């Protein structure tokens, strides 16, 4: 089947999509967007987290056809070409990236958290950060540096215009 959707603001059209395929497979294997990672294909690890119509979801659990006509946002779309998003900068500076496999999913989940709390004019509490990232597993860092990175990103983004 043919799938048409918007990814990171660009309209994409791909043919010969198998009906049982996941959005994650389409992004990685058909659209040349391998940023979202495939680690478990069962919703457990969050490394495939993308925005679907502005809501973070596991791309491995979205059937390709369910994305028809929808807006998808991936880690590739967080910042412009050659640039880093404040969340990406914070992850680098805090040392929150080791092997990096979990990073794309965590960046999207963090971006969502920081945007939501900024829209409410506040910074996320630690408990909220843990809750918001509960669906993203990291086998390397032990999470402490990730928490540091989220706090850093929240501090920096608090100053920006909404």
């Amino acid at each position, binding site marked *: 089947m043919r799938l048409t959707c918007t990814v990171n603001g660009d309209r994409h059209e791909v043919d010969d999509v198998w*009906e049982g395929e996941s959005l994650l497979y389409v992004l990685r294997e058909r659209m040349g967007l391998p940023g979202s990672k495939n680690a478990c294909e069962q919703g457990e690890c969050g490394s495939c987290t993308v925005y679907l119509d502005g809501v973070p979801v596991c791309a491995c659990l979205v059937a390709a056809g369910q994305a028809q006509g929808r807006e998808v946002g991936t880690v590739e779309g967080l910042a412009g070409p050659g640039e880093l998003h404040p969340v990406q900068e914070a992850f680098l500076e805090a040392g929150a990236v080791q092997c990096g496999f979990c990073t794309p999913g965590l960046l999207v989940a963090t971006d969502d958290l920081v945007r939501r709390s900024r829209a409410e004019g506040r910074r996320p509490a630690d408990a909220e950060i843990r809750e918001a990232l509960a*669906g993203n597993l990291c086998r390397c860092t032990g999470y402490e540096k990730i928490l540091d990175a989220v706090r850093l990103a929240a501090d920096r983004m608090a100053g920006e215009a909404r």
Partner: protein
Amino acid sequence: MEFLQPATWEEALEARAASRDAVPIAGGTDVMVGINFGRLRPALLLDLTRVPELQQWGTDDGAVRLGAGVPYARVITELGDRLPGLAMAARTIGSPQIRNRGTVGGNLATASPAGDAHPALLAAGAEVEVASVRGTRRIPVADFYRGVKRSALADDELVAAVRIPPRTGPQQYSKIGTRNAMVIAVAAFGLALHPDRRAVGTGIGSAAPTPRRAPAAEEFLAGELDGLWESRAELPPATAARFGELVAGAAAPIDDVRGTARYRVHALSVMARRTLTWAWADYRKGDPACA
């Protein structure tokens, strides 16, 4: 495999009737795991996410009519005041990503004994509204579960909505697992106090072939609360303990990878006693709903 995306409820019901082996898909958090791991190869995937009626909730005849396709995240943010038990259960499900997609309709149709919506729906006294081209019927949720992952849904039917009486008193949900997020319950318990009809609702999860109520515990507690509803006096600890024993007695668990039957029975008695203690404390503080 075919992929169909009906835009209306009528089209969805017709497609379901025309293809009995079609697999409906809502949030996909059960279906896609099956497909990704090659366990599920439906001839037709029937995507319900474009049917507007399924994505809405409203009030009807005093009940909240929750469309089958409303994701847990919205149950939590939009219905926490009216359906606190279900919202608490929803908070324990998976992760934010799963709650953004997964639905109560999908939980019902999967009918896993460990599904977290079930104990809350049982305690609240919900009804499942199912429909087909033949018409619509309402099934009390306690009659909906027919066996391990089997429900009363016929092969031409879809879940339209769940009808849940809004709370009239405190509700609680308790779940035991290896950590807070992303766990299938080892055992779970839902409690609802219904001061309006001087009744108690219970729901047991992960401790029998199907989710089930604990009728003897409900009757016992309703009897003990006779008079206390008005006085709002303290609940004797022995009453809470006995309630816990009766809830545990209603379970029929097995040993499996997540826990032993013995542990589950014990856990249920503790969860029932604790949730009752919390709920009664709320009620004594003048829980607003009992006027």
